[in-house]
């Protein structure tokens, strides 16, 4: 631990500079995010589950799907926001339409818009749709447009579905009508070919033909009723907007809002990054400075032992640390050039 503290003391200026840059930039960014973020949100009351969403598990109808109406609608809204066409429809209803038309990369712009949307469940029947950006006017437009496009999309899907059912009923009605006419024609033919008193067998056959006519007419009547109901279903669905009621309309914010979480996140990330960088610096510094700090420190090299120490020579002013070596060399070798072995 001591070596890390020593390294921290050694690099305190660098540490201070790193913290100043990273933390300063992070906190400034966090403040900017907080002060320049505007959010508009709509709170929506969901009365009942949409018929399209009430189906249970198709693989096992006996198993109930545990899902509240609010969570169903939240999921639906979230899924709609994933599609580019939905986002495009939303943007085209706002003041950002011109931006979208001028955008060189439409997909990127739509993805950027998508990131600013947020849908969250507030309870079993309530959900909230919000949009956050640096412009105070855009969020309210976006939220309103998103709700409107969502409603249109859902209604359109229902009407299409209803029309398909109506077509099916009409084709079945036509077939049943033809079947009834055939049965009536068969009965008339039988009556004209059997005037007078009928035998028991003929009476039975005539009764069967009559029964076929009754059955065909009953089916005709039922199909007519179904076709009529499907024709008016679209109109009924138009009125079902009550199931998705905006309780709190989105409002244009005059003061910054909604940027608190992002600002806190940014600040925390910068604080953590600064601390991490400093820790890394201290670790590397301690690693590089992993040396013998003094005679007592030689114990770290066990079983090696300290034999002796040579003190650092403090030389006088104007003299460098390399003075020792030339002085020693001069004393050792400056004795004239007389190579000889003397022992």
């Amino acid at each position, binding site marked *: 631990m001591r070596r890390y503290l020593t390294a921290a003391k050694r690099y305190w200026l660098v540490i201070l500079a790193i913290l100043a840059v990273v933390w300063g930039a992070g906190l400034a960014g966090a403040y900017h995010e907080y002060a320049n973020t505007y959010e508009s949100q709509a709170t929506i009351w969901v009365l009942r589950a949409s018929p399209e969403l009430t189906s249970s598990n198709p693989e096992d109808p006996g198993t109930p799907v545990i899902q509240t109406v609010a969570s169903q609608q939240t999921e639906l809204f979230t899924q709609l926001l994933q599609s580019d066409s939905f986002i495009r429809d939303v943007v085209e209803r706002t003041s950002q339409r011109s931006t979208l038309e001028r955008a060189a990369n439409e997909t990127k712009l739509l993805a950027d818009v998508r990131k600013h949307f947020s849908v969250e469940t507030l309870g079993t029947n309530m959900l909230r749709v919000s949009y956050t950006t640096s412009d105070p006017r855009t969020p309210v437009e976006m939220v309103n447009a998103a709700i409107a496009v969502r409603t249109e999309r859902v209604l359109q899907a229902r009407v299409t579905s209803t029309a398909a059912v109506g077509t099916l009923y009409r084709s079945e009605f036509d077939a049943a009508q033809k079947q009834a006419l055939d049965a009536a024609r068969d009965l008339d033919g039988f009556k004209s070919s059997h005037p007078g008193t009928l035998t028991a067998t003929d009476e039975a056959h005539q009764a069967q033909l009559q029964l076929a006519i009754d059955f065909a007419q009953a089916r005709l009547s039922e199909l007519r009723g179904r076709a009529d109901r499907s024709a008016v279903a679209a109109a009924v669905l138009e009125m079902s907007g009550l199931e998705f009621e905006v309780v709190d309309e989105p409002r244009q914010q005059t003061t910054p809002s909604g940027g608190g979480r992002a600002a806190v996140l940014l600040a925390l990330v910068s604080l953590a990054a600064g601390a991490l960088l400093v820790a890394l610096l201290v670790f590397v510094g301690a690693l590089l400075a992993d040396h013998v700090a003094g005679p007592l420190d030689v114990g770290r090299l066990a079983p090696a032992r300290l*034999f002796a120490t040579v*003190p650092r020579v403090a030389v006088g002013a104007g003299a460098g640390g390399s003075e020792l070596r030339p002085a020693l060399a001069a004393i050792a070798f400056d004795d004239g050039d007389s190579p000889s072995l003397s022992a």
Partner: protein
Amino acid sequence: MSATLVHSFDGIASRIDATGARSVGFTSTLAGEGTSTIALGTALALAELRQEKVLLVDANWIHPSLTSDARRESAPGLADYLARKADLITAVRSVERSRLDFLPVGDREAARPTLRGLASLLANDVTHFQTVLIDLPPVLTGEMYVLPWATLLDHLFVVLREAATPLPLVRQALGKIGLATPEIILNRTAAATPELATSLVAAHRRLA
């Protein structure tokens, strides 16, 4: 020689003298640890202490700075002796004033230090010296020039520079040497001796 000059190496010299060692080597982990300076200073201090000739051998095949200090770069030396191209009489330079005999490295291309050659040198050809000091290259960069000496010398010191030599590299160097109890000389410790510096400079100026 200034009497105070040897003070900084008195500690090493006294300890070596106390052990009765005859042959002593100095190596290091990396270059620039002060090994050659310590070898030189210790040789002078031992000559002063024992009042007899000391043979200082420059066996640093990588950076023979003592040979340069003695201006014996082109003179025959240890390598020539090992290659049997020269004998010690012509290779060793004697300095009467310092009681120092110096064997330069010689022509390093001529031969490398071998166990047999060095054993012969220490056992036969320098027996008239009671003290033989060897300056060796760093272990990590000149392992092949250090290891042959390791088993022949009475002491092989590893010089470390206080607050500079990285411990992992020191451990690596000690592992390469393979001695059971490696001995460390810690160079440039914080205990400063200002009077020594003054005397060194004065001695140098006197000689100049």
